[in-house]
């Protein structure tokens, strides 16, 4: 989806950076200034400007810590403003993650800050783009579903202990493969941003970069050591002064990970389509997103195969299209039909309260010409699924409920944390 993001200082409106995504042309300097100007004008009159809609797009203003103004101009998909606010929250916390809250909230040298902020661009751009994972819109970390994960827990724990830390994890193609219990204690947003951060690192490299954890330690940096084990497969550990990157690279990696080379390769293969092997999936399901709201993680796949000779094969939906539909369905459902589940630290402007239903919404569906969507809102889980239009309406609900039940029983998805804690 096309979008513009403008970051300015709250005092004076000095532009810090501006990013554009999709088909949108970059904003002119004057336009950035005006976006800031209207907000400032309102502020001077004791009015807080929150959002503005046009027929095809929406604009959201947020001021963070009285120092930074973020303005987002985004194509409208009919969704609640809460998602635009979530995105701005993510962008701000990305800045915190790289530079620390002190630097961002007390602006001293603006020229320098502008230079420093460039390091955030890859992550911010990935947040603005439509990417192949759902983690940012649902503020959770996306996991890989494979049975081989269990056998990697042991080596990870011992590796992290050797590094004199308790926070460690393995990412696989932008999804979390396995993590230590301490890592799971981070907030969903932190895990998501770290995941994006690690994904943005150059391929096949090893790095040692100080990061601030937006909620756990926004003012004190930790060293994040990340080493690519295979292309797309990264082991990361958060540590203090020791060990050095070279120690990790030369001594620890081989001893801990070489014996599991085959397993890692298996996981890498599984992460491409991310279809759970252990769960029977109805052939009518074309894609799904399941969120474990309690453990801040989600699992998704839009690459489920179309059964040959089925009705769905006649008018197949491409994987990109399925993903777009599922994203839109999610954004239109959460915030307007289902309540939003935020990180507890997040304070939202009062503007994006979902419309207040008097009764609790449990399920919802949309039947379109070329697909059907179904969503379930249960206590700890949420399911969003896209079906072939050939599946009859009454079957969609049954299949969805069955699928969620099966997934709840699947250890690979639900037990990731309990087992170790």
């Amino acid at each position, binding site marked *: 989806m096309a979008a513009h993001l403008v970051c300015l200082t709250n005092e004076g409106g000095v532009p810090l950076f501006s990013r554009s995504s999709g088909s949108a042309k970059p904003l002119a300097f004057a336009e950035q200034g005006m976006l800031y100007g209207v907000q400032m004008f309102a502020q001077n009159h004791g009015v807080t400007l929150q959002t503005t809609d046009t027929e095809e797009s929406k604009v959201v203003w947020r001021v963070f810590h009285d120092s930074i103004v973020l303005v987002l101009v985004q194509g409208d998909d009919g969704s609640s403003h809460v998602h635009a606010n979530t995105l701005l929250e993510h962008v701000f916390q990305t800045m915190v993650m790289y530079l620390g809250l002190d630097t961002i909230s007390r602006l001293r040298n603006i020229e320098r800050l502008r230079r420093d902020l460039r390091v955030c661009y890859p992550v911010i751009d990935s947040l603005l783009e439509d990417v192949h994972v759902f983690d940012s819109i649902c503020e959770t970390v996306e996991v890989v579903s494979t049975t081989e994960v269990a056998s990697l827990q042991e080596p990870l724990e011992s590796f992290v202990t050797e590094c004199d830390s308790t926070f460690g994890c393995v990412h696989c193609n932008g999804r979390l493969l396995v993590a230590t219990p301490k890592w799971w204690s981070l907030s969903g947003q932190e895990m998501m941003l770290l995941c994006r951060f690690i994904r943005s690192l150059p391929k096949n490299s090893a790095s040692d970069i100080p990061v601030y954890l937006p909620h756990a330690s926004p003012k004190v940096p930790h060293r994040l050591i990340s080493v690519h084990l295979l292309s797309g497969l990264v082991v990361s550990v958060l540590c203090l002064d020791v060990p050095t990157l070279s120690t990790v690279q030369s001594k620890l990696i081989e001893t801990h990970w070489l014996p599991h080379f085959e397993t890692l390769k298996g996981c890498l293969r599984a992460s491409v389509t991310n279809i759970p092997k252990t769960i029977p999936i109805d052939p009518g399901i074309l894609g799904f997103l399941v969120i474990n709201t309690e453990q801040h993680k989600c699992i998704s796949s839009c690459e489920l195969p179309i059964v040959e000779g089925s009705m769905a094969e006649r008018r197949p939906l491409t994987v990109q299209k399925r993903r777009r539909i599922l994203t839109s369905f999610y954004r*239109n459902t959460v915030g307007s039909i289902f309540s939003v589940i935020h990180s507890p630290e997040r304070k939202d402007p009062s503007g994006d309260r979902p*419309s207040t239903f008097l009764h609790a919404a449990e399920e919802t569906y949309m039947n379109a010409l070329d697909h059907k969507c179904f969503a379930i809102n249960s206590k700890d889980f949420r399911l969003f699924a896209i079906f072939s239009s050939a599946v009859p309406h009454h079957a969609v609900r049954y299949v969805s409920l069955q699928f969620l039940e099966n997934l709840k029983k699947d250890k690979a998805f639900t037990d990731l944390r309990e087992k170790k804690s």
Partner: protein
Amino acid sequence: MPVTLKSIDKILSSFSSDNQMNIQLERPASALPSDGVLSQPKVKPPNGKIIKLLTERSHDVSNSFLEIPHAIMYLNMVRDSDDNDAKEILYKYPSKDSASKLHAIHGLFVTLGDMLHNITDSRITGTSLLVGEELLHVGYFKWCSELLVVALPAKNASQHQVQCITQQIAKLMNFMFLSLNRAFDDEANHGRLDHLFNLLMFQLLYKRDNMDVGLKGDLPHYQDIFLQMLPGIRWLSLPDEIKLDIDSTITDFEAADFADFSVQHYNDRRPYIIIGSCLLYKGYLLSSHLPTEDLLDIGIYCNYYSLNGLATHQTVGQLVIWREVFPTRRVQPMEPSVHGYSEPQARWFLLIVGLEHSALCVLLEAGGCAFPAIGTVFPDPFYVDQLRATLLHLDSLKVFAACEERLSVPPIPALSSVDWFFPSRKTSGLELGQPPLPPSASSSPMISRLHGQSPAAVRGRKPSDLRPFHRPPSPSAGTSVHVDSDNESEPTSPFPSRTNSSQSSPSMGRRSDLQRRGSDVSAESTGSNEIYRAGKRTRLVPDPYNLGMMQRVANDSSVDHFSATKLTAGQDNTLFHFVHMDSATGIIVCPTNEDIKFLGGSIHAYLLQNFQICCKEIRRVLQRHLKSNREDEQLKGIPGDDSLNTVQEYGILFKCTPPNWTDAKKQPPAVQYWVVGRLVKISSTIKEFYVCYQHSTCQNTIEMAFKLVYGEGPLS
């Protein structure tokens, strides 16, 4: 006291604003027709004070909502550097303090409107902002270089609602004044606009504000939240004979070929020709012979001037409204003109004559083939009289009595109250206004109630609705019984059930025709036997609604009652509520306010409220579908997402528990229900259907929509 045209101003101004009063208007029998005409274009805002006084003490409350921040402004977006005196605010409401802050930041709205058009290449529609602690929604309507801005508190109206209201105000201004500029530029209009917006704010701010106090108190207003946003007028379905009476009477009037209407009478061309007319009763549309666009224009006019509310709550002695209008269809044609034909250059006038609870709205054209109108045009007493005569004639045909009867009978099609689905409650259902249920069954869950029906109760069940009464008993009637009572085992063909409901209703004919009644009685006995047999053969499930109705009807001297059709599939009648909107005819079919009162129930009130909120959300998504069909051109700026643009059906499952559940040990009983919105496309027209039913049997919304509105609507 006698009121004449000359004395009315004096009399009205002599009332101080603190007084509460009821005004009943009555025309002296001896008076000349022109005396009855209260409104003249040059005199005061037409109908202004009368309505203001009649719509529930607006004088008392006009001060109470001044505290609430709200504003309507019309802003000039072009700043002429040469002319420093050029006004930026062309019109503002209210003129008092409460909106001063909003007036002060009018520059913000102008800048936003201008800037965002450049950045996103699409028109601005809405803004949310915090004024102090209060969240406000702002709606925009941009017209050339001017901007109409409407700001309302979020707790009174949602963002989407504010945008709808803004659109509607713009439409109304165009209808009344030709263009927004003509409406707001001319200071002479400002008093009139102030009055109109007073009425609007009274509806929006005062009524809603006082709603929170007692949820079950004033139910009908809850409906408005969603219905007022729909482009359409509520339709009252009537039996065919009555519809025929109405349509033929109005057609007679429209034909205008009776002696006095003729050219000879005037010795000249006739001053107006009648483009079409529509008949309203208590705010429900009974018949429309107008093009849909014109009907919608008039609908908005009546709505914003609270004429519907007036006709519902008060008995109007006589109401005459006359004004020049600029129908959207003529002024801003949407459809390409037909080759070889062009609409005449003419002026149009809206004439509304109200009598008791009914109102007849007529659109007149001067110019074209009628005499061209020049200058200020006064209402023609002759036309007013003809309208009045038409209404009186309709009354003499007992049309309005039939409407009243239609409003007093149980809902058609049959509705259930959600309260009936809860097993047992401490409060008695009777207190809540629920139809009485058989005492033996009232404490058990509804399902068992349904199964434990005695044949006697079944026999009592409205035989008339199972058989079209004006046909002689025929073998086919038996099948109709079967179909109606057993929807679950075999899908009902919508045709017979619709026939039941539309043909079997009471009626004028029936009342007057004793012989027919006699045959009906005989049909009753055979009919009930057939039902009984059918009951043994298959499952026969009368719904509790009907049983309740039975008792009510039993006390009534009249056996006539409207029949009900069951819309939902499955054993029980699980239908709670529905709204059907046909954009081609501009009519909305939904349960009447009286239906809702009939059902009662405290939980049901919550359910209806939730239904309204939910439908807004559903419609927002479905609208994207409609929009995408309309505009195919590629936009340059920031395009919106189109993934959900083909959605046709959108449903949400809710779980409903009794409010104020105090028993902490036990789980409160719960009923699950669906709220489903569906677009029904028939050739090029699109209908919208919103329905609320209990979660049990899987329902087919298309089928329900079809059953509901088959044969419904104005003549087309």
